[in-house]
């Protein structure tokens, strides 16, 4: 897949679609959550309003260079993750910049944004930021493990690390999806998914009650706007990886919209039912329930 300049506008188009989709999706999901809690919830366009408002706000405050760069790192992480993964299978247009690397690149690039933001938040000097980061890091060590195992199992299954090839192997019917050909791996991955979506019971990182929203505590105005942008891109990008690996990918934007929504909804459904775990509880939970499934999946594969 050699690089051509035309891929840049195509990638930007993907980005544009995903941003809009993400804005609507997150609003919708917040509304669903509110309704489950017998509240009215936000308006469906509320995210647009918030985002525009924050971009419009100006500030004179910075805590230092890393603080300033934190949101940039964060959003670079989200955008990069989205663009390193092909969004629509079989489409030259929407295979984005996936020529740069394979599945491994995507998995490791997840950390780029988190790391940058953690550093930026750290420079603010606010202890809540640091506490949030430690919680997040602690949790991610256990939560990522089942996913890593599942990915390993899947790549063993398809004998490739190329996302495109993995999707290609799942074409030709629902039964070819990894979900059915390798249910253990998918189960492990989906449990891990719960842990990485910042939703209950694994949302101790943001924990509004104890450490008001955790790492981004000190961010406001345009900084916050960049982070909000990321917050709509990043989950979608992540779900896209899941979709590609386990649920047959998407051959068109319609299928994309539906699949991403459904996968996202898994974490929402779980989230509205369970209360929050403390860090050590969630670590134990992952190690006890998710990891064995993952191990089983690679042993069988």
């Amino acid at each position, binding site marked *: 897949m050699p690089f051509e300049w035309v891929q840049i506008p195509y990638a930007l188009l993907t980005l544009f679609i995903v941003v809009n989709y993400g804005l609507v999706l997150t609003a919708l999901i917040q509304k669903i959550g509110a309704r489950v809690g017998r509240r009215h919830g936000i308006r469906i366009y509320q995210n647009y309003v918030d985002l525009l408002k924050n*971009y419009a706000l100006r500030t*004179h*405050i*910075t*805590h*230092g*260079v890393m603080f300033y760069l934190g949101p*940039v790192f964060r959003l*670079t992480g989200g955008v*990069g993750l989205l663009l390193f993964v092909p969004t629509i299978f079989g489409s030259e247009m929407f295979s984005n910049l996936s*020529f*740069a*690397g394979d*599945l*491994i*690149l995507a998995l*490791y690039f997840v*950390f*780029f944004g988190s*790391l940058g933001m*953690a*550093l930026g938040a*750290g*420079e*603010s*000097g*606010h*202890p809540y930021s*640091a506490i949030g*980061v*430690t919680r997040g*890091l*602690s949790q*991610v*060590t256990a939560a*990522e*493990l089942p996913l*890593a*195992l599942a990915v*390993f199992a899947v790549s*063993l299954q398809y*004998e*490739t*690390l*190329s996302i495109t090839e993995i999707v290609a192997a799942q074409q030709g019917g629902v039964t070819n999806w990894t979900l059915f050909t390798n249910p253990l791996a998918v189960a492990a991955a989906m449990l891990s998914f719960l842990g990485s979506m910042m939703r209950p019971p694994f949302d101790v990182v943001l924990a509004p009650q104890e450490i008001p929203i955790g790492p981004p*505590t*000190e961010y406001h*105005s*345009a900084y916050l706007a*960049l982070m909000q942008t990321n917050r709509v891109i990043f989950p979608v990008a992540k779900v896209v990886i899941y979709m590609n690996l386990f649920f047959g990918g998407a051959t068109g934007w319609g299928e994309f919209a539906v699949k991403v929504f459904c996968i996202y909804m898994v974490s929402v459904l779980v989230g509205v039912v369970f209360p929050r775990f*403390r*860090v*050590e509880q969630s*670590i*134990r939970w992952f190690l006890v329930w998710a*990891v064995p499934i*993952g191990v089983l999946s*690679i*042993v069988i*594969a």
Partner: protein
Amino acid sequence: MVSAIFILAIGLGAAFLLGLLRDTWRGLAYALTLAALAAMSWIAGSWLVALAGGLGPVEIRTAGFAPPFAIALRMGLPEAALSLLISLTGLLSAVYMRGTLMRLGRRAMAVLLIAVMALVGIVLTRDAFNLFVFLELTVIATGGLVLLSADPRALGAGFKYLVVAQVISILLLVGVIFAYHATGSLNIDDMAAANLVTLKGGAIAFFLMFVAVVAELKPFPANGWALDIYESAHPAFSAILSAALSAAALIAADKMLSIGGPEWLPVASSLGLVSFLGANILALAQDNDRRLLGYSSIGQVGLVLVVLGQRDILGASTPFIAGGLLLAHAVAKAGFYWLSGLVQGRSLMDWTALRGHPVLIFAFVTFVALLLGLPPFPGFYAKWGLVHALAADGRYLVLGLILLGSLIESGYLMRWFGYIIKRPQVDLPPLPSLSKRAVVLTAVAAGWALGWIWGEISGYPNLLLSIPLLFALGFLFIEWLPAWVKNLVAIAGLGAWFWYTFPGYDPLHLIYAAIILVGGAVILVASFDAKGRRVGFYPPAMLMYAGLSMLILAQDSFAFFAAWEYLTIGSYFLILRGKKSEPHALSYILFSLGGAFAILAGLALGAQGVLPFDVADLAKAPARLAPWIFALLAIGFMTKTAAIGLHIWLPGAHAEAETDVSPMVSGILLKAGLFGLTLLLMIMGKQSLYGIELTYVMLWIGALSALVGNLLAAFQEDAKRLLAYSSIGQMGYALFGLAMMNHLGWLMALMFVINHYIYKSMLFLSVGGVAKRTGTRDMYRMGGLITLMPLSFIAVLIGIIAVSGVPPLSGFGGRWIFYNAIMSSEYRLPMVLIFLSGPIAFLYLFRLIHTIFLGQLKDEHRKLKEAPLWLILPQMLYVAFLLGFAVVPGLALRHVDAYISEFFPAHALIWDDITITSTFGYWSPISIMVVVGCIFAVLFLWLLVLNHRAQKVKQFNIVYSAERPFRPETTHFAWNFFAPYRKALGFMTLPLVTRFWQAQTDLLHSTAQVSRRFYTGNGQTYAVHMLAFAVAVYLIWMGS
């Protein structure tokens, strides 16, 4: 040539002549004594030269009649060497004891002369009864010389000795007369020829003679009397006792063994082993310097006895091996005792007085190295030969016990050295006596000369003549220069050697060579920061580099092992330089030497007695032994890479080392272990032991090391300790990669070799710089330093991105290769641990950068400056290199990739223009860098547009529970950073391994403490011990 009988005649004649002098002419008497000893030495020396030149052994008849009718002496090469040793020791001790001898007068001098004469007599005589006479002369002379001591307790010690000597002489006399009765001759050679032990009554007669002569070796445990003498006698006499008397007694034992024949060899070996092990264990509990040296002497003599007992397999090399051990011991021990006379206190701690006297410290080091058989000293050649012979013949128990004993010995000697360098200095400076110092230095010179001689006759290239070693030793002579000059020389030397050897490397070796030599030079740039002369830094540092550079050039096993020892010793001295590094340096050297012994045993097993042995020939090892060889070597190398279970030395050693030493020992030294493992796996491949594939075990060890190393790193408060534990994890990854035994696994390991060097050197330097400025290594005491030390921050930032494997830096390449590698691996379960440990790295990395550079700046740090330029400079080089390596990893890797294909053709990578393709996936470092860079730049510009007027606000301008915090200490979240994580996984950080090793050392120490009660101090009890020893030997011999 003057007849050797004149050695005896001169000694005696001079002693008698002394009696003619007036008691007041003490100066003349002293001069006569020295002249006589010098003449004796000269005769012995001229014989030694002649015999070494090819002259055969010469028989000297007395009274003009042939043996057995008259007493015959023999002067052969061993006799000449030992005669020279004895007379020189006597001469030097006489010089040393000038004051005492002058005070006590001619009688004391006569006794000394006679003692030396008698010892030479023991060496020369071939007559059993004459041996008895000379032994008794020695006993009596000893009884007299003990009295030279200023210590009133010596009197009791001398009496105890006489009591025991009585028992011994009774046994010997009875034995001699019955041996005479059985063979009709008193000549030792006749007794041997007549096969005394097979004659009627001869066996018991021999037993009595043998046990009596062995008793003169002060065998453990029947040796309480000897220890008391060692402790209380004049040090110069203890030197004679330890060096000369031991040598004489050993040659007497050798003569006995020549009579006893093969049947008695195992008995000698067992007695020697018991002595060697027992004495060394008991020495562990000693606090008195001279008593400790006494135990060590007994151990060493035991070791030589073992060698004599192994002569059935050592054959013609017995004199070389036994002589090497014996002479090294004698010179070292004499030197030690002479040195002890300069030290005024008698506790081990009192030797701290030597600190600040580099020459005396050098003497101490030389003696320790001689005793421990480190290269380039004779003991090294000797142990090498001994171990190979034992291994070739399947005497594994003997081999194992010898190595164990040596390890214990190095334990207490190295511990002692640590005390000297690190413990609070006592207020008793060493005596200023010039003559005494000259004597000590003569011993040092003798030690090195012996090293050279043994190198010449070893049949190997002389270790002392290798250029890197000479270069390192050369720094001893320019210690007076300022540090920066020496640093320049060092850097130039490394560079020149790299230039010189460059054409000879294949890609694999080139990577290691570049890291060691070029990388070493870069780290040395940081050493320009040191002020003053920095005495004691360059010799060990360059010794380490010499060892490393010789290691990668080594072809045969001997050169390999010698290089391994050099780098171990050099790095030990380097590590010991750290402020609080004493216990850690000790545990480092013990683990390292233990590992080295495993390597030695492995190589010896592989060689099967064929020397010189090309390391590559390990591939041809017999199938029965191959897995064991593999296991031994792997354990040895894994000790150096600090694999889990053998890792407990690393954190302290690396953390407590000096700022520029930490990167050397972490970034470079650890690679020695990896190099060894690479070679081992390349040569021996997969091996199975009892059906378990050993590489699979290594895979698990690697994975566990990665996990535990990372996990422990996350819980450290000390920044350098954190980095040190991280090294354990990183080495675990590399080990894991190698153990996968496939193409990509190896590539990954080599990538780790490069990466780890760069980022660990860089991180140690930046953290070291910060620690230097803040005066602490505790991260929670730091914070907010980003604005004050931006360059250090950048280095750490780039470093942690690279370590964590986050794209776009080079660490990701390692991860990518890793995933591709495990895809082609047969084993899956150990991967789980690796997967788990990966994210844990984020924990400690974030902690490192956050708690040091981010968060709240402390009040006391507000005026700190950036780290010194010389520390920053190499860091910036590393940053540049890391970025470069991230973009074009192929520059280094593709050659290695091609090289590895020779061994593992499958799954080689394809290096296209910008994309690297494997069987499973692809990776384009340049694209990643460009894409990430562009996105980042665009977003950054956008933020600038939006927020270009942002101003930096004050530290406490944050939203904080409606309060304004006012103390950075309370607001900096840093201590116990991962408390919840500890709650969840803390059980995995229990120091089980530390406890295990602690239990082992405790066991040894309590054994020593309990057993030494055995030496009640009662002379009568000692005599009972002696008798019990004899009866026990009898029973054992009867039983066998």
